């Protein structure tokens, strides 16, 4: 009897350890699929706010987690608006002002161009496994896809969202849905990814829907096209001079 109980405990602990390890493994595979060394793309942002739909287009470049560049091309009002991220700083260039301005820390978490994405959301390219402790809490299904459900809790202070709940496709190891939480436990944003593109070793999300739960009747769809990954990007793109070029 005693042996059976001991065995049960050992098996439970072993199963828990196995799951904990699996959680990390799953997240590592998700990171491997989406965190790229460099990228360039054309993006279309469809912003829906209280029934009004607006479309914006921009071109983006990113290198590692520290350098990113975006330039808006549509609509006419936003054409020429550029953003440059270098390490922890984001600079914005408005053609009407003809000079770059640094966006202060707290503004990075504000809506970018009126969308449900924040500046930080758009330029984020960091391995989640470096930022969060992960726990595999179960399985679920989204549509016809079977998913692992991961719960992530921040292990470093400097994260955009304290906790995340991610639904990861069991076959492809991509995040199909994520809920992003504040430290208070309040749901802040919900992401659903409906399309992926296989590029090299990556399964890169190309159609992302973000809902800012702190606003009402709003969502933004981000559609990425002409994606090029792990490419050589001229270093001049990630400079203030390029940002402020006439």
């Amino acid at each position, binding site marked *: 009897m005693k042996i059976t109980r001991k065995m049960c405990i050992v098996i439970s602990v072993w199963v828990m350890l196995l799951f904990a390890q699996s959680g990390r493994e799953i997240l590592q595979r998700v990171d491997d699929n989406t965190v790229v060394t460099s990228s360039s793309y054309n993006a279309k942002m469809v912003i829906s*706010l209280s029934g009004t739909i*607006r479309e914006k287009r921009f071109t983006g470049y990113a290198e590692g987690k520290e350098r990113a560049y975006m330039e808006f091309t549509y609509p006419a*009002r*936003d054409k020429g*608006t550029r953003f440059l991220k270098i390490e922890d700083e984001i600079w*914005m260039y*408005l053609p*009407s*002002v*003809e*000079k770059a*301005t*640094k*966006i*202060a820390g707290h*503004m990075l978490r504000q*809506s970018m*161009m*009126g*969308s449900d994405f924040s500046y930080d959301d758009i330029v984020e390219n960091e391995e989640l496994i470096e930022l969060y402790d992960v726990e595999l809490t179960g399985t679920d299904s989204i549509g016809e896809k079977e998913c692992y459900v991961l719960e992530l809790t921040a292990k470093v202070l400097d994260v955009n969202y304290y906790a995340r709940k991610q639904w990861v496709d069991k076959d492809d190891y991509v995040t199909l849905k994520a809920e992003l939480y504040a430290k208070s436990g309040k749901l802040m944003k919900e992401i659903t990814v409906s399309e992926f593109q296989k590029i090299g070793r990556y399964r890169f999300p190309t159609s992302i829907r973000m809902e800012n739960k702190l606003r009402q009747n709003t969502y933004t769809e981000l559609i990425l096209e002409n994606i090029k990954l792990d490419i050589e990007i001229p270093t001049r793109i990630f400079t203030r001079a390029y940002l402020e070029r006439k």
Partner: protein
Amino acid sequence: MQLFKLAYRNFFRNTRRSIISGISVALAITAIIFARSYIGGILQNMSGNVIRLISGHITITTKEYERRERLIPLSESIELSNDFYQSLPEEDIELISPRIKFGVLLGEDELSIPALGYALNPEKERDIAGLQKRLVEGTYLKSGERSAILGKDLAERLNMTVGDTMTVITRTAYDSPTGMNLVINGTFRTGIGGIDRSIFYIPLEVGQTLLDLEGRATEVIILVKDPGNAIQIAQSIRLGNDYSIVPFQYNNVLRYVNLAETIYSIFYLVVLLVACSAIANTMLMIVFERTKEIGMMKALGLNNLSIVGLLTIEAGIIGLVGSFLGTVVGTILSYWLKYEGIDISMVSSTASADLPFGPIIYLAPTPFIVISAFLLGLLITIIVALLPISRAIRINPAKALKTV
């Protein structure tokens, strides 16, 4: 009449004590007249500033804008269409001025100084906000010109002066980043810290372009011919359920200030009661000192009512003299400061833009304040004195006559 004569004589039996009691009442009455006039002055000052700089006599916004006003939601704007203007009762209105309030972060390289911009019609607002009179340097705004006038302290915080170009970065009504370079035409000083430190004004059309609000405004300020009728006029405006039409009497700031006035009234009463305790003390001493005398008067047939009457008249004389003196001094002081004013620029320089007062408070005494303070002084003196006086009724003549 006999009692009056007696009370009058008694007043001088211990002149020093009577004078001290009278002075304490006089000081309280002076303080009350001064304080009420001062608070009235602050109220007038603040009402004037709220009407000129914030609300006009009537403010029209959308209901949603009003609900989320602290967030300055530019998306909740009013279309300045012909229909809108036609729905306003022209005959009662002196002036209609649309405004857009917007938040910005200013700074040379890094946006770090929060400020509040107002886009308004320079010609119309010349008199409403009195901005032109408050310029300390430079020139006033011109319609359509990409220029700004800044609070003097804001200009200093930005390290800028007239002729410099200020870059304004903000968000459009659709939340896109937007910016504009504006030439600083002038700087102004209102004496209200919150305004001088953080507010700038630009022409309406420039603001509409900057914020993607062509033909629109977030609030419409109305000045009416008869401010006393602002409530009725506001009620007569028919714009539909999406609009909020608020006369200045219902302005939140002014409502809180009025509430404060009620609280102050209780404070005045406490001050007066404390001052009158000197009278109570005096009367108590009189009753103790004159126990034998009161006993004698009773023994000679003076009834209780007459004794109470005598002592009450005595207290009344002190109250009357004190209240009169206090009223004279308080009135002279308040009416003098009504014209001279009190410089509170040290305090007003820290006042917020939401609670705009200062920098010079002109007292606002009224005949009502003066007369009511005088009567209140007299009344409270008598009421407070009645308690010790009532001891005199209980004096037994036989025992009293035996006292040393």
